[in-house]
């Protein structure tokens, strides 16, 4: 399938943005998932709601809130700009937007995996001398590894498809912030762009389907692994 340079650029940018979106958000997603699965505290419902907000809010709202916060005049954006970090209208901003949009999906998958781990195994590890971190590292994490991978795959797929928040926050600049969905949208706005759009649509479907299938398969692995007593 011969891709034209601008189509190719959109695909590669989307892969880069999605990769970094997952890499930066995965550790936080594991932490939040663990807290939600294993700890009781005041404000737990609020944290859970906050994590799930991007799933419920219109993406354009999330994008606009990002622009208000991380834009060059935003509260956080101004501080970051002083450090030489600009997110708005850059591919890094696209990665941030994709990370936030995919976060609830990752947390959900990882939380389910953690909840499937028998806490009595963690208790047993404690009696053998393992502190909280060691218990997590040697017992919980290996048991949830397939679930973490599944969450990462879901987050990656979500990032590949993210459109609304991305275009609002970083616009649609070819070669800079034009991701796969943005490119499809742009091609559909110009006469004769249907061919390019269709090729990218096929790519998007293949990536999304592959990601969901991989995620399902990894999810089954976690169940098998924990069932292996």
């Amino acid at each position, binding site marked *: 399938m011969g891709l034209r340079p601008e189509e190719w650029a959109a695909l590669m940018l989307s892969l880069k943005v999605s990769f970094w979106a997952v890499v930066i958000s995965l550790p936080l997603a594991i932490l939040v998932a663990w807290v939600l699965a294993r700890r009781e505290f005041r404000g737990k419902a609020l944290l859970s709601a906050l994590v799930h907000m991007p799933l419920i809010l219109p993406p354009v709202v999330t994008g606009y809130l990002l622009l208000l916060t991380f834009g060059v005049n935003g509260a956080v954006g101004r501080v970051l700009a002083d450090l030489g970090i600009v997110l708005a209208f850059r591919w890094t901003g696209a990665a941030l937007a994709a990370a936030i949009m995919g976060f609830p999906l990752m947390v959900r998958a990882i939380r389910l995996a953690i909840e499937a781990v028998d806490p009595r*195994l963690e208790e047993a590890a*404690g009696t*053998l*001398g*393992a502190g909280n971190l060691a*218990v997590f590292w040697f*017992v919980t994490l290996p048991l949830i590894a397939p679930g973490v991978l599944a969450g990462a795959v879901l987050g990656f797929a979500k990032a590949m498809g993210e459109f609304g928040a991305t275009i609002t926050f970083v616009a649609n600049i070819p070669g800079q912030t034009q991701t796969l969905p943005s490119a499809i949208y742009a091609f559909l706005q110009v006469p004769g762009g249907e061919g390019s759009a269709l090729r990218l649509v096929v790519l998007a479907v293949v990536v999304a389907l592959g990601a969901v299938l991989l995620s399902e398969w990894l999810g089954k692995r976690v169940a098998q692994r924990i069932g292996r007593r």
Partner: protein
Amino acid sequence: MSIELQAAHIFGDFHLDVEINVGTGVTALFGPSGSGKTTIINVLAGLVKPEAGRVVAGGEVLLDTDAGINLRSSRRRIGYVFQDGRLFPHMTVDRNIRFGNRFALTPATEKEIADVAGVLGLNTLLDRHPGALSGGEKQRVAIARAWLSKPRILLMDEPLAALDEPRKDEIFPYLERLRDVAGIPIIYVSHALSEVARLADDLVVLQNGRVVASGPVENVLSDPTTLPLVGVREAGSILPAKVMEHGSDGLSRLRISAGDLVLPGVDQDPESSLRIRVLAQDIILSLKEPVGLSSRNILPVTIEALYRGDGPGVAVRLQAGEDHLLARITARASEELGITPGLNCFAILKATAVPKMSIATSPNREK
């Protein structure tokens, strides 16, 4: 090494209020379900924090609610063998038993690991995952794992409860070896008196969250007042015995302090020391030395104490040589025979009344 525990805790309508001191050897916590046995060892291990309590092990304070001290379970160095094994499913047997090594003050050496694996018969299982083990094998791995974490106390919460009878018989020799070589106090929780009688040196009887009897296992079990606590069918005393000879007819002669017993099903070598459990309901009393009786097991005894419960039975403690027997007879027989403390009479035991399960090797230790 000794452990002192005091704990008071309320769970709904269950009140736990105990004070227990444990020394070397095997101490059994015995009682029905819901008597607080598991809660007590969970307090020791730091898995349950009582409302008020104090735990001191070998001079170190592990818990003192008044002083605000509560060491995390990972800092207590108390090994725990759970009823349900709780092996790590993603690790081989070898990695399971080495798990505690990473955190131990003085990690087990390769020789110690090999020795423990040998004592518990794990050498052919080391590469397997827990999913491929039988219930008895899992419990042996769990014991090795707890033991190799180099604890100062080993807690065992009904480690045999999930196993069927043949599996229990299979694992018992391993427990007896563990008791003899572990060299640390073992607290063994059970609601099966046969296990307690085989393994324990000391016995703590619990009921409704309180200690109702405690002391050396021979004393507690031969005390007539404990008969209602352990149940009329389970009550019985423990006698140290020595194997004298095996007959060609499948019967063996054992020496106890009051004389000789002839019993079937003894497969230990001559000269070995055993402990045998004689159930109270299997003893018959006779005022005169019986003649023309089929039983070969007739012992001269002296009545020490009687305890009349609510039922039709009377529990009688007998002095037999240096040891004690517990007999259960009907109140009517007791009155008609004029059974009173100080009376000399004869105890008769049917040879087949002592099942194989009630014959165990005795602790290989100076007490």
